[in-house]
């Protein structure tokens, strides 16, 4: 298995077009992040962003009374100057710009400062509702409320970092699109390519060319997917780190506005890793689906087209929620690629009267779905399981050796055609008949 895995991985990585596509798309991805960042767009944006950044750096880190006083004082000073018409030395292009900048920073810090209060209010309200549910005997909602209390209690943010840049990073999906294209490019020919090169019959004529090879190919696809995903994830992170100046990796994930009510209490850094893992699972799931199409179709381009159509279908499906489609979406790998939405809010599913986080359910169902896919791909690629003979069972084979053509070289003298084949009897008759013919003339030189 290891040798086969080595060869299959080597086959994948020795495709020059594929490697070129990986490198090219990495550059496209990096350029796209660079281009879409305000900091590099035009000189005006560059100057203003730099000014705000300088001011921000004086505030970031542990929230202290001294920092808050400094911010408040400067804000008052700017407001007074605006009223009196005085000119102040500014970080920004003008005093009005400074006033807006300080106001923005003030709002952000205030939001963090008030986060604990907001959560306290939420917990109080939750406590009140729990009492009502308990009164009404709704055990599921009681359990849900208890889970809310458990998740949101003891939350606080004591440091200020401009973590909103992480929100932009988490929402960045262009690399996912490129990765899907690469995965489809690599996997569409994984099985179909053997058929195209005429190797399939040879492979199937070997003991290792069935299940073992099918799984070695899956493993090699996984190696490829993990490798390119890591390369792209690293590219995304480093580019955002440089362009958007990601800060506050140690802050809790709920310090980001979009994740304020996230059930997770991990740090932003841990969430980066978690999100990468969830996305990777999604890409592996897509890879498995693409391998399935590659097994089914005899041509790589057909498998690639099917991959593309499937992706559009899944994207459309993921846009809908509620009802039956919500259950179908549990196995929709698009949900894993946009894993941030699994953790941005408190969402639970009723599993036999117990509230289970939607993210946990999605991940579990996806893992089960992927296991089924692996088994199914093995089934398709094992010729003993497909195209099965109708009366293949040995016990059903009648012993009609009289009907057979014995061609063992040892007894050629009496080996001929005993089958009740009308063609054969016709030939015998013709031969017998012809023996009666006497064809005169000398034999000519054969041509």
């Amino acid at each position: 298995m290891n040798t086969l895995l080595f060869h299959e991985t080597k086959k994948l990585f020795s495709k020059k077009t594929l490697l070129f596509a990986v490198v090219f798309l990495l550059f496209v991805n990096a350029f796209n992040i660079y281009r879409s960042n305000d900091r590099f767009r035009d000189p005006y944006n560059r100057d203003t962003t730099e000014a705000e950044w300088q001011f921000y750096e004086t505030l970031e880190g542990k929230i202290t009374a001294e920092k808050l006083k400094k911010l408040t004082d400067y804000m008052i000073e700017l407001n007074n100057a605006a009223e009196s018409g005085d000119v102040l030395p500014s970080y920004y292009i003008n005093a009005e710009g400074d006033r807006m900048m300080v106001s923005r920073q003030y709002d952000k810090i205030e939001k963090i400062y008030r986060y604990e209060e907001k959560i306290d209010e939420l917990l109080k309200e939750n406590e009140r509702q729990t009492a009502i549910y308990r009164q009404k005997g709704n055990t599921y909602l009681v359990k849900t409320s208890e889970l809310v209390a458990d998740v949101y209690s003891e939350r606080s943010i004591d440091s200020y970092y401009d973590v909103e840049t992480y929100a932009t990073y988490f929402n960045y999906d262009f690399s996912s699109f490129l990765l899907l294209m690469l995965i489809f490019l690599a996997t569409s020919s994984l099985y179909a390519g053997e058929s195209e090169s005429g190797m399939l019959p040879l492979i199937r004529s070997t003991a290792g060319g069935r299940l073992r090879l099918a799984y070695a190919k899956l493993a090699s696809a996984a190696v490829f997917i993990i490798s390119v995903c890591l390369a792209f994830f690293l590219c995304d992170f480093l580019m955002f780190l440089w362009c958007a100046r990601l800060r506050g990796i140690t802050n809790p994930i709920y310090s980001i506005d979009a994740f304020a009510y996230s059930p997770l209490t991990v740090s932003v850094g841990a969430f980066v890793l978690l999100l990468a893992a969830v996305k990777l699972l999604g890409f592996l799931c897509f890879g498995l689906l693409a391998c399935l199409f590659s097994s089914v179709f005899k041509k790589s381009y057909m498998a690639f087209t099917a991959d593309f159509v499937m992706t559009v279908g899944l994207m459309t499906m993921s846009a809908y929620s509620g009802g039956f489609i919500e259950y179908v979406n549990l196995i929709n790998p698009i949900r894993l690629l946009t894993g941030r939405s699994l953790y941005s809010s408190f969402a639970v599913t009723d599993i036999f009267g117990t509230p289970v986080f939607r993210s946990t359910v999605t991940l579990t169902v996806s893992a089960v779905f992927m296991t089924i896919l692996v088994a199914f791909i093995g089934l398709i690629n094992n010729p003993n399981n497909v195209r099965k003979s109708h009366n293949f069972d040995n016990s059903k084979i009648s012993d009609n050796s009289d009907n057979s053509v014995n061609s063992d070289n040892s007894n050629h003298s009496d080996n001929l055609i005993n089958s009740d084949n009308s063609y054969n009897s016709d030939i015998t008759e013709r031969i017998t008949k012809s023996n009666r013919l006497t064809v005169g003339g000398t034999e000519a030189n054969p041509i």
Partner: protein
Amino acid sequence: MNIEIRNVTKRYGKKTALDNVSLTLGNGIYGLLGANGAGKSTLLNIMVTSLAPTAGCVLYNGTDIRNKRSGYLDVLGYMPQSAKFYRNYTAEEFLKYCAALKGVKHGLAKKIDELLTFVNLNDSKKTKIGAFSGGMLQRIGIAQALINDPKILILDEPTAGLDPKERIRFRNLVSEISANRTVILATHIVQDIEYIANSVILLHEGKVCRNDTPDNLCREIDGFVWLLTANAESVEPLITKHRVSNVFRDEQTYYLRIVSDEKHHPEAKSVTPNLEDVFLYHAGEVTK
């Protein structure tokens, strides 16, 4: 060692590719002869377990070949029809890959060197398969089929696309490796098997219509092959009307080799049949 093809039928929808084929094969070279679409590749695909029969089975030493316990795949070597193999692989890498597929581990490097020497590809050991000529591809095909030292060797149209010199070389190779082996060589080129096959199996429209030594097959149609001289004008009508196995021109005179039960022309002379005539006699159709 014994292979028994028992009442094998293969249908694709309404089309019957193989119709109740039964054969017993021992050691030696078997030439599987038939026109395109006669069912040769279908039979071979069933024999290499790439395809399941609609009815019937193939037994190896009494056990169904699709049963893992038969150990059939461990003793099988197969060279598929016009496989391109992997362009990015060198000859050596490709043989290593095939060895991995067949579970061959011990003494692999030595075995690969021996095989490459045997098929005269030792100088191309590190050459990528994409740069191989048709003849070299066929030879690497033979080498991969032999990597597990098989007892049963199945070659599907092995000489397709080869020049005459390569074909002779290939025939010699097959002759050399046939000792203590069952070699099944499927082809529609009669010369490929005429001199090397111990037995010829003639397939026509999915049925085995003949199975015997080349000599016996030729003897069977003794008196059915005629040589007729003709002029330029009468050649075309004769070709249309009769089964002509060969036309030879000597200045203004044409010699036609006609396969027929009857002497159609008073000037026709009976000649000794060859395997090509046998093939045409059983599988050939007159283009009326």
